[in-house]
């Protein structure tokens, strides 16, 4: 059993890594426009192995730990782990994540074959794109498979690197380069907390292996759970773009659309959710930490959803929607519904990737246009994209029987019953979500045809449509099929689930209520954007400052610039000034002392007779006085 898992784990990691290296090396000289095959095979193999692992794993027995090799030594001898190894921790959460990640990756890579076709020219980076994507799959699988915090950190940073490289894929565009840097740096801020959290775990437990930390180590962590949990959560906030570190994700849409679908919607950004779910044993022991997680999630959910109302960039709306949905997941984690959160992660991967691929299909058809004001009536030109987009929107809005409904519902029930205020915020978010989702659909696909003259929209090819169809199936059925099996399979830490669960609001009530509210949101969107298009404009004028506030994304970017970037830059200038004048000046001052002495001595003997005479007379005088006074 263990050897099987070992082989599968190594294959899952090595297949994409090898294909990344090979396509980077052979891509340009040999494969040219066929680079995608290398990566499809690699990631496909990884997907098959993930499925096998999923099939082989018995979720009821304790999870095996598989050590590959020893990595870093700490030189400690007693009570501490002396070395950190590269090891895998394989349980149900791992396999679920692996299957999700590799499946969506495979589909997105197949989709990219056509989407990135215009990058075929020698210097445009077709092979670079596929090499990076494959490297990303490797990194993400490392993150998920890791059996200790250090390897988790490696995967964590490596996915961040891939994200950096792929956001900056169109690097000649200054916005893309700036967005890439911003993503890396904002993540680094979160990672500071994450790293310190890991350090604190090591200080208390002396181990970084999950097996130890979540087992005997929990006693050693006593009294520090809140600190550790909050520090770890910093990392999750950065990676999963929650308040206040959400600013990088909308900008990350500068990357190619398949990247947005895969990395910035379906997989990488959910790493924070995965990590908190993984460390559930620590989080669950700290009431305040859970409160912080839940509050951050709920506030981010409504915050991002309201911003999405006032945006026109199709991909940015979807990005804010991702932030909002991730907020739901954290809310779920914070109210002890980790299984519901991971379930939502699972369904969200399908419908959000689907929506992004749909947006990509629109961009593909429209020659890169993505502003909702320039789109309209695309239903006629892109029938298949339209159908899949409707499915994706319904799933995002949470209409039964689409996938999003089941997972969101589970979170809402738990939230309303444990933390009512946050729960009702989440319900309100659901209305807003329905509204902005169908706003996109109505504006872009329905209504009168609004297409710039020079553009001739056309439906995408089969390579792009098939992945979208597969994802549509997921967005349709994943919720209904797995709603009951999921939490049984996962066995996440929910020790206090039962005690907290006094049902004020039944499952059925919440389901009906949220469906009605969602329908309300959709209806409003229908009225605003189909029936009475001028209402939308009128509301915009009426709302005035609020609308501007939303459109400018609550001025968070400006605020950060004012609070952090500029002061630090000024501080840097001051430091440099100090360096040039004060520190260096002091050094010259010190060297000035010998110079001063030299100068004084030199003036005494520059060859002028008067000077010598004067000195001689003075010397003689002093000598005489000395003799005079010392006479007995």
């Amino acid at each position: 059993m263990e050897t099987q898992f070992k082989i599968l784990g190594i294959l899952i990691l090595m297949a994409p890594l090898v294909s990344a290296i090979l396509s980077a090396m052979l891509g340009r000289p040999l494969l040219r426009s066929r680079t995608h095959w290398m990566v499809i095979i690699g990631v496909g193999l990884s997907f098959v192995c993930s499925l096998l692992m999923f099939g082989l794993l018995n979720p009821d027995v304790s999870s095996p730990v598989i050590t590959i090799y020893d990595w870093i030594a700490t030189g400690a001898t007693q009570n501490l782990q002396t070395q950190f190894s590269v090891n895998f921790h394989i349980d149900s959460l791992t396999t679920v994540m692996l299957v999700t990640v590799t499946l969506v990756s495979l589909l997105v890579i197949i989709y990219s074959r056509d989407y990135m076709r215009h990058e075929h020219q020698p210097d445009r980076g077709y092979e670079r794109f596929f090499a990076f994507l494959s490297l990303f799959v490797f990194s993400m699988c490392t993150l998920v498979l890791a059996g200790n915090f250090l390897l988790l950190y490696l995967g964590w940073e490596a996915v961040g690197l891939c994200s950096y490289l792929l956001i900056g894929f169109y690097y000649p565009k200054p916005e893309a380069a700036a967005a890439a840097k911003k993503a890396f740096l904002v993540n680094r801020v979160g990672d500071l907390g994450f790293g310190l959290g890991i350090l604190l775990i090591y200080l208390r437990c002396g181990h970084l292996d999950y097996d130890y930390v979540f087992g005997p180590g929990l006693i050693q962590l006593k009294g520090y759970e809140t600190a550790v949990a909050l520090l770890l959560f910093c990392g999750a906030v950065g990676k999963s773009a929650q308040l206040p570190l959400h600013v990088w994700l909308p900008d990350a849409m500068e990357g190619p659309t398949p990247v947005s679908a895969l990395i910035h919607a379906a997989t990488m950004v959910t790493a924070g959710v995965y990590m908190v779910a993984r460390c559930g044993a620590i989080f669950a022991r700290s009431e305040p930490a859970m409160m912080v997680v839940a509050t951050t999630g709920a506030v981010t959910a409504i915050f991002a959803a309201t911003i999405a109302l006032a945006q026109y960039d199709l991909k940015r709306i979807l990005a804010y929607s991702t932030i909002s949905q991730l907020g739901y997941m954290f809310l779920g984690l914070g109210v002890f519904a980790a299984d519901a959160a991971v379930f939502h992660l699972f369904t969200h991967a399908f419908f959000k990737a689907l929506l992004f691929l749909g947006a990509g299909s629109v961009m593909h058809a429209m020659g890169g246009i993505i502003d909702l004001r320039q789109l309209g009536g695309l239903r006629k030109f892109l029938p298949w994209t339209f159908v899949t987009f409707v499915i994706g929107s319904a799933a995002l809005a949470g209409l039964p029987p689409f996938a999003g409904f089941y997972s969101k519902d589970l979170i809402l029930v738990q939230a309303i019953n444990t933390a009512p205020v946050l729960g009702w915020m989440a319900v309100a978010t659901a209305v807003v979500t329905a509204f902005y989702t169908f706003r996109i659909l109505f504006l872009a696909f329905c209504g009168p045809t609004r297409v710039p003259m020079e553009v001739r929209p056309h439906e995408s090819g089969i390579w792009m449509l098939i992945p979208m169809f597969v994802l549509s199936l997921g967005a349709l059925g994943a919720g209904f099929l797995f709603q009951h099996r999921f939490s049984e399979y996962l066995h996440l830490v929910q020790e206090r689930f039962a005690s907290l669960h006094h049902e004020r609001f039944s499952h059925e009530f919440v389901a009906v209520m949220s469906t009605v509210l969602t329908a309300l949101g959709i209806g409003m969107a229908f009225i605003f954007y189909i029936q009475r298009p001028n209402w939308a404009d009128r509301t915009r004028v009426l709302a005035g400052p609020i609308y501007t506030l939303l459109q400018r994304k609550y001025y968070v970017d400006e605020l950060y610039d004012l609070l952090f970037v500029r002061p630090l830059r000024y501080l840097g200038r001051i430091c440099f000034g100090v360096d040039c004048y004060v520190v260096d000046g002091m050094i010259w001052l010190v060297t000035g002392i010998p110079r001063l002495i030299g100068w004084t001595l030199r003036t005494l003997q520059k060859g002028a007779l008067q000077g010598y005479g004067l000195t001689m007379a003075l010397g003689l005088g002093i000598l005489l006085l000395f003799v005079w006074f010392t006479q007995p």
Partner: protein
Amino acid sequence: MEHWILTIVIFLPLVGAISILLREDRNQSDIAWAALGWSLLTLVAAIWTVFLFLGTDAASHGGFALEQTVSWIGKTDSTSSLLGRLKISYHVGVDGISLALLLLTSLLSPIAIAASFSGIRARLREYYALLLILQTAMSGVFCSLDLLLFYVFFEFTLIPLYFIIGIWGGPLRQKAAMKFFVYTLSGSVLTFTGIVYLVYYLHSRQPAGSVITFDLPQLYQLAHECGIPASLQWWLFVAFAAGFAVKVPLFPLHTWLPLAHTEAPTAGSVILAGILLKLGTYGFLRLSIPLLSEAARQLAPTMAVLAIMGILYGALTAWVQTDVKKLVAYSSVSHLGFCILGMFSLKMAGLSGSVLYMVNHGLSTGALFLMVGMIYERYHTRQIDAIGGLARPMPWLAFFLIFFTLSSIGLPGLNGFVGEFLVLFGTALSPTTYDGFPVGQLGFSYAAVAAIGIILGAVYMLWMCQRVLFGPLKEPPRTPDLSATRSKDLNRREIAILVPIAMACLWIGLVPRSLQNSIEPSIRTNIMQASMGNSAGEDNSCPDLSDSDCDSISIDLNSGADQ
């Protein structure tokens, strides 16, 4: 047993330098290739040294190996006169720490030579001879086990570099060379005073007529036996620190560094950042901490605060630089702060992290200076504002610049991370008794503040990458002298220079154990046990073990009574 191998590694470049200086009839490219040949030969010898070292006891149990001792100053037969009692010898030997740095020296020197092929056009014989002499001096420092020998090599590094900066440097080369020379010399004069006084003091505590030894292992022993009083240790520590801190450079004694770096030719910068700065940290590690352990412990917070100030200050200053080379130079100030911080955690994790950090910084910053040089050769400018979008015409340059940037900002999987991580670990672990070493003075808060430096490190490096590599292509206006090379991607020679460094970065990042395995025993015996005496390590060990020790002792007593 006498081993010649270290002597060969140290003096082979010197032989090469002499042979280059003597042959006047060679043409220019022959001189360069001859220098590279000698230096590569030394690299082979250094790798051979590694294999020899791994075959000795010292590789797994610590202590020095491959030693060679030849009496140098002082007659051995008479002990009556002062000169007769003086025992100064040519004593070389390596442990895991110095071997790592020796290997780094031997790797970076041929790279620095190969990097000069296109940049240096005048007075080649002198230039390459000086580079080779510099290599001898640097290898000598890392191998010396005699204090006077150490000091001689330590000071001798100044002379070749002074000329390299002063003759082949940029427009302000004279000033830079002068500043560099005076700064470091005035510091190390104090170090010399300290060395002499230390030796004198230890001698004065010995019975009359005993030898005055400069031998390092013997001094470790003597320092432990005599017990230098804390107040004296304090003064000696300051005197030692004066020389070493300037070299490191520790804030606020760093102002020579940016100027020297920007004015030095590429090879000079590579050697300066890659190896010469490590002489300072190596000095702290080899002399200050083991010989003056009490002062090191007491002054650890001071040193750590200075180091952290350097980390943050260097990073912030690097961020506002407009000259790429100056940016990398200030980044060194920031990085070496981590090195000092880890060292003064006085914990195994911190110390071994610090040694790895020395090697890592040598690799990644050395490579960054090489790349800055490559950009400069193409555009004759280093101003960040003047260039941009180079990734499109030069994908190889972009690849390597991003690679070494990532290595420098500590991406896990590359070398920088391992050192950084261990340094922070050691710092946070400092007040514990986990690993058998006595309690240090630093703590989690030090690590937390220093970690901010990691964010800032990413800020300025990525900012530089974004400006130089990405965005629309921006090049300085065409002038006749640089139209040939501009926007040409790296050539084979340049790639061949960078690939070995990149391989080393990956290797250390993925399998740091291979280095740590020989570094850790050396730290245990040569740094920690030298400072505590051979038994002190067990006194401070974990209380859990002492119980069982007591049990076994009492059993022994009982069995003795029975008989």
